[in-house]
């Protein structure tokens, strides 16, 4: 074999070896990396964002919906006249021009200036043709009624990964139903970047969030908001809350509390305003608790409306304490009806003693005192009842007139609702139905929890409460011609081991019309300053709303 032949053979062997090595390098060593680069050139993952469900009031109006907004950004490198541009942007975006100027001085190609910018503002900026300014579409949560029922709705913020998440109220409680699920698809592009008309490789399909249809009646909510706000201002209260319920179904028709916040701009308000006090705050209910204890004793057959109180002629001594009436007026041998009408504490001590601790605790549990009502809102609290061995005779006596025991306003309203609903206690419900994206409506039926008292007892108690409303301390505010059942409450606030006589929680609970209740309502004012009494503060608010509701429902007078 000549050397030429050998050289040629060797050359080709080396040449092929080099090719094989190179191919091995591309095909094996860098295969994964190159495959990813190639994939990125013709494939693109498209995120199909699920639309968050809307929250609608009973009239179908969306009080929470998604809205198109814009992120305004700028490329500082193309801006020539920084001063004039920062002035113009500052004015249009309502931020200091110095802040914009500082952003324009950054050595970057993309600087975000402001997010959640309205379309109107975007149009104004676009019209100015400012160099370097661009817009990125965003979806933000929008609440057309601003702060109406804010604590009931909650708000949408971000989670740790930057995704939308509902917090508090309905947005929090129903977050999974509302948020839906994003879809992901791979779109193939040609060399120019245009999508190729080919079947998309869907990895997951987008599922839009479900809509919630509430029992909340927007008109009643508006009336309640307006009157409660007016009442807080007129009576100099620190805060206030109220709710209206349909006694027969447990449907919450309106729920309001102040101070509140605007869910669209929740960041501008203190965290404390996010919490719905109607389901989280505990307070001593005072005399609004009396109808529950009275109806429990009547249901147990221990007293009748005309039973006479034999300890009501003066202050009642118990465990070293003297228990007085709220105004130190005493009615010897008063009837049980008058005990409620005069809001007589000594009469309630008489009822409490008749009832005894075991039966009182049993009835309290049946009325749901100490338990969560199960309302479909995030953050409901239940203060719980003390253990039986921690009750002393004085506790039994004071609990009978609503002191020394704590409830949430929701618990109390739900318990009184049982009196309005022939003794049946309903679970409070905010959401009436869930609508799926494909148009199906899933109704949520009313739920009866239990029946703490008989229908007869409930009717008798209703009549006593009508008498209390017509002849009691708040009779000046009553609506003539209508049978409204009601009870005032003025609860002292415990401060450092004693009750502060100047600070009270004034409340009024009731329902109407008594013969066929269409609404049950509780109004609570925290520390009113013009008067400490529920009859002079919470009751007028209650009756103002009640009158509006009666007119709105078109209910004719009973008399």
């Amino acid at each position, binding site marked *: 074999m000549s050397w030429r032949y050998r050289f040629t053979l060797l050359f080709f062997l080396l040449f092929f070896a080099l090719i094989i090595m190179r191919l091995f390098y591309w095909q094996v060593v860098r295969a994964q990396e190159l495959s990813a680069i190639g994939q990125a050139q013709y494939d693109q993952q498209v995120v199909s964002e699920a639309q968050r469900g809307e929250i609608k009031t009973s009239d179908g109006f969306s009080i929470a919906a998604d809205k198109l907004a814009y992120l305004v950004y700028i490329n500082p490198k193309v801006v020539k006249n920084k001063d004039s541009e920062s002035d113009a942007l500052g004015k249009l975006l309502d931020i200091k021009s110095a802040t914009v100027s500082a952003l324009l001085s950054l050595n970057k190609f993309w600087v975000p200036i402001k997010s959640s910018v309205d379309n109107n503002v975007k149009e104004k900026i676009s019209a100015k043709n400012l160099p370097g300014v661009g817009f990125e579409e965003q979806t933000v949560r*929008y609440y*057309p009624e*601003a702060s109406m029922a804010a604590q009931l709705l909650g708000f949408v913020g971000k989670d740790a990964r930057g995704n939308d998440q509902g917090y508090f109220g309905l947005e929090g409680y129903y977050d999974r139903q509302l948020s839906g699920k994003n879809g992901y698809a791979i779109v193939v592009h040609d060399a120019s970047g245009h999508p190729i008309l080919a079947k998309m490789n869907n990895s997951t399909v987008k599922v839009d969030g479900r809509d919630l249809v509430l029992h909340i009646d927007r008109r009643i909510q508006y009336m309640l908001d307006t009157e409660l706000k007016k009442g807080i201002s007129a009576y100099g209260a620190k805060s206030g809350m109220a709710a209206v319920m349909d006694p027969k179904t447990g449907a919450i028709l309106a729920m309001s509390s102040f101070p509140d916040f605007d869910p669209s701009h929740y960041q501008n308000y203190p965290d404390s305003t996010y919490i719905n006090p109607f389901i989280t705050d505990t307070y001593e209910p005072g005399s609004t608790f009396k109808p529950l204890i009275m109806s429990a004793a009547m249901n147990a057959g221990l007293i009748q409306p005309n039973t006479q109180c034999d300890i009501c002629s003066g202050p009642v001594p118990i465990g070293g304490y003297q228990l007085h009436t709220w105004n130190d007026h005493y009615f010897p041998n008063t009837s049980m009806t008058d005990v409620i009408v005069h809001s007589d504490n000594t009469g309630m001590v008489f009822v409490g003693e008749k009832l005894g601790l075991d039966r009182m605790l049993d009835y309290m549990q049946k009325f749901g005192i100490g338990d969560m009502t199960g309302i479909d809102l995030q953050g409901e609290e239940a203060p719980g009842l003390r253990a039986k061995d921690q009750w002393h005779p004085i506790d039994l006596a004071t609990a009978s007139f609503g002191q020394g025991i704590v409830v949430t306003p929701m618990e109390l309203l739900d318990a009184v609702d049982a009196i309005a609903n022939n003794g049946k206690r309903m679970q409070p419900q905010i959401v009436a139905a869930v609508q799926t994206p494909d148009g199906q409506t899933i109704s949520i039926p009313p739920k009866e929890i239990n029946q703490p008292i008989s229908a007869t007892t409930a009717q008798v108690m209703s009549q006593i409460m009508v008498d209390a409303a017509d002849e009691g301390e708040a009779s000046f505010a009553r609506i003539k011609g209508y049978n409204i059942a009601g009870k005032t409450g003025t609860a002292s606030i415990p401060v450092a081991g004693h009750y502060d006589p100047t600070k009270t929680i004034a409340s009024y609970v009731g329902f109407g019309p008594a013969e066929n209740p269409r609404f049950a309502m509780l109004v609570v004012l925290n520390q009113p300053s013009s008067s400490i009494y529920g009859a002079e503060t919470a009751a007028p608010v209650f009756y103002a709303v009640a009158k509006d509701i009666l007119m709105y429902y078109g209910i004719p007078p009973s008399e």
Partner: protein
Amino acid sequence: MKKPIIIISFLGIVIVLMLILRISLVNSISTTGITLVNIQSKIASYKRENELLKVAYLQSASYATIGKEARKLGYVPVTSEIDLSAPLPLALAK
């Protein structure tokens, strides 16, 4: 000798026709990407308009806006009501 020529010619013609067909198909499909982009951008603009109109409607129909406008126009809340009792049926009245 004639047969192979005919067959080869026939195959040649078929190949040419197939090529023409393929080119025309590729040509027609090649622009669908652009059409697709146009359609997508139209859909996006309609959706955007829809969103903006929905927000404008919600804004106008909200009680917050209606209340404000009503106050501007001088409307006041109803504070009294009138009840009209229905007259008794004639037969009963007599």
